[in-house]
């Protein structure tokens, strides 16, 4: 029988201690990766919050006090219209009136018009939140030195008005209304396409196809590959097929709509639908797989056909999983930007989308556009728009969790 010498007594103690030390050092290293991830996530979120609020130095072309005795935001609709009439040239006023009759505009819209056209606020400098909080004195000194006569005000770029006003060429008056509506349309069309098709494909693969057959293996591999195709490539597909080849359909020309080209909500929505399709299929497959076989056997056992089994037993039980998967797919669709750029999202749209055959913009497109602008006030509204986007994503995910919990209780 062999006998080998290993460290003993003191040497052993030192040896084991050294091994533990190495292990401890590496444990700290492993953990630090997660700490870096946490740090990055918080830096990202704080950076956005930092940008979306803070002091703004601005000046008026015309002091509000010179045109109205009451503070502007306390004026009612009629008083605001009178103000506009008195201070704008006849031509400018009529033009505005033709775009949308003054009487049909809300108090908020009129107020914005007064600020935009008469007071003419000009942003000189914006300051991020944390500097605004902790270095107020320094900011005040800087502003009074560099921009004499400028006013300094704490501003939340994310506000109810920001949500309800459309795009504007001036950051101070821009909002995300059209972009949010555009995003909702897109996601709606995408899921209306991807959900039935995706669930159908998943049912075929899980319940009908012979899993060992060549065709179902090809389909399965293909779906996994589609999930890894870069999103911008889907954009190219959408551009060539939906925007160009199917233009009569996607522009609405087939239905008598003549004023658009193929770069419509419908084209973009279908592109997004194709993009999230693999995600929907894979999630639906997982959900269907999780339905116990005993249930299928029970259904067959009382003489059900295959489709009856699927429709009455498998799908209802897989529903929570399918819904959760669809909501994940919607989250993906709502944040995707690159394919929208390629299929031709318009960047400057102020009218709410009315049908699938209108030009569109979307929330991530606005974020991209505003982020790319050099002026700090646009970066501020980009941050505010990101907060809106993250809010939407949070709502979607919370809904997914709620739905899942609720359905799980029922079955």
């Amino acid at each position, binding site marked *: *029988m*062999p006998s*080998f*010498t*290993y*460290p003993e007594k003191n040497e052993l103690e030192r*040896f*084991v201690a050294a*091994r*533990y030390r190495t292990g401890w050092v590496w444990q700290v290293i492993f953990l630090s990766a997660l700490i870096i991830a946490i740090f990055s996530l918080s830096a990202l979120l704080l950076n956005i919050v930092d940008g979306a609020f803070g002091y703004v130095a601005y000046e008026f072309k015309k002091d509000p006090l010179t045109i109205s005795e009451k503070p502007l935001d306390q004026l009612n609709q009629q008083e605001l219209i009178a103000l506009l009439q008195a201070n704008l040239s006849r031509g400018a006023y009529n033009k505005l009136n033709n775009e949308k009759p003054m009487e049909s505009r809300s108090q908020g819209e009129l107020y914005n018009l007064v600020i935009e056209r008469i007071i003419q606020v000009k942003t000189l400098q914006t300051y991020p939140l944390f500097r605004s909080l902790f270095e107020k004195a320094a900011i005040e000194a800087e502003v009074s030195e560099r921009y004499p006569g400028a006013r300094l005000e704490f501003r939340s770029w994310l506000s109810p008005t920001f949500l309800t006003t459309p795009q504007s060429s001036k950051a101070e008056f821009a909002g995300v209304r059209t972009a949010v509506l555009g995003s909702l349309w897109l996601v709606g069309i995408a899921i209306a396409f991807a959900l039935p098709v995706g669930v159908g494909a998943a049912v075929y693969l899980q319940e009908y196809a012979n899993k060992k057959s060549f065709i179902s293996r090809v389909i399965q591999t293909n779906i996994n590959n589609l999930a890894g195709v870069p999103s911008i490539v889907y954009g190219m597909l959408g551009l060539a097929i939906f925007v160009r080849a199917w233009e009569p359909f996607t522009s609405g020309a087939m239905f008598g709509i003549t004023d658009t080209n193929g770069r419509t909500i419908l084209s973009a929505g279908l592109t997004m639908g194709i993009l999230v399709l693999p995600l929907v299929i894979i999630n639906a497959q997982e959900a269907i797989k999780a339905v116990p076989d005993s249930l299928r056997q029970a259904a067959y056992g009382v003489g059900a056909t295959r489709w009856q089994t699927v429709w009455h037993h498998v799908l209802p039980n897989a529903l929570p999983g399918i819904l959760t998967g669809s909501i994940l797919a919607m989250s993906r669709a709502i944040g995707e930007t690159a394919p929208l750029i390629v299929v031709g999202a318009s960047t400057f749209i102020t009218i709410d989308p009315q049908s699938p055959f209108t030009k569109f913009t979307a929330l991530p497109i606005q974020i991209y556009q505003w982020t790319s602008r050099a002026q700090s006030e646009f970066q501020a509204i980009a941050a505010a728009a990101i907060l809106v986007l993250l809010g939407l994503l949070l709502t979607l995910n919370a809904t997914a969790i709620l739905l899942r919990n609720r359905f799980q209780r029922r079955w």
Partner: protein
Amino acid sequence: MQPANNTQYAIETRNLSIFYGEFEAVTNVNLQIEKQKITAIIGPSGCGKSTLLRAFNRMNDFVPTSHVRGEILLQGTNLYGKEIDPVEVRRRIGMVFQKPNPFPKSIYENIAWGARINGYKGNMDELVEQSLRAAALWDEVKDKLKQSAYALSGGQQQRLCIARTIAIQPEIILMDEPASALDPIATLKIEELMQELKRNYTIIIVTHNMQQAARVSDYTAMMMLHGDTRSGTVIEYDRTDVIFTRPKDKRTEDYVTGRFG
């Protein structure tokens, strides 16, 4: 953990109870395991045989809620003392598992790895060869040491696992149903190997197979579930021939004669 006083036993338990959270899986075990003998632990499924075996080298530590009451003494030192390092315990008390579990490395590396991490500085080739010889595997694998251990048959893999345990020079080898996944011929080889190994090592084996216990072991501990608490305990511990021919406990007699479980 140094050999303090040379007691006559390889390892002994004193009032040992093992818990998973609130649940008491094994109750009040007192065993004195003889040196250089094979001790079998038998009993019906779920009576805590593996739990008891895994307590000896503190493998139960990996179950987050597990803890013990009482003592396991290795030459007078309580293995569950506060200052005791489980890593060192496992080097002294090796283990062979139910299913062969060689590492996804070469045959050579399977043996060298344990030696290396435990600080062996001598000639590695020599250690590999001698360990394989001791496990009666050398002749079968000497030409393919660089090949993956997964290329070996189940029985060979199990002997490789025994060889890698021998390589780290433990005092005691624990075997958890080492032949249950093997065919009768491979089982026979393992049993022959055990007889060879007991000249140098103390072996504790858990087995389902009563014939195997009767064939290979010198001592046998019979475990059984307590009726009320569903907790396992050793109801009889004696020389194997005594357990199998004239057990004192009626339940042991029922079990070894096949009237139970």
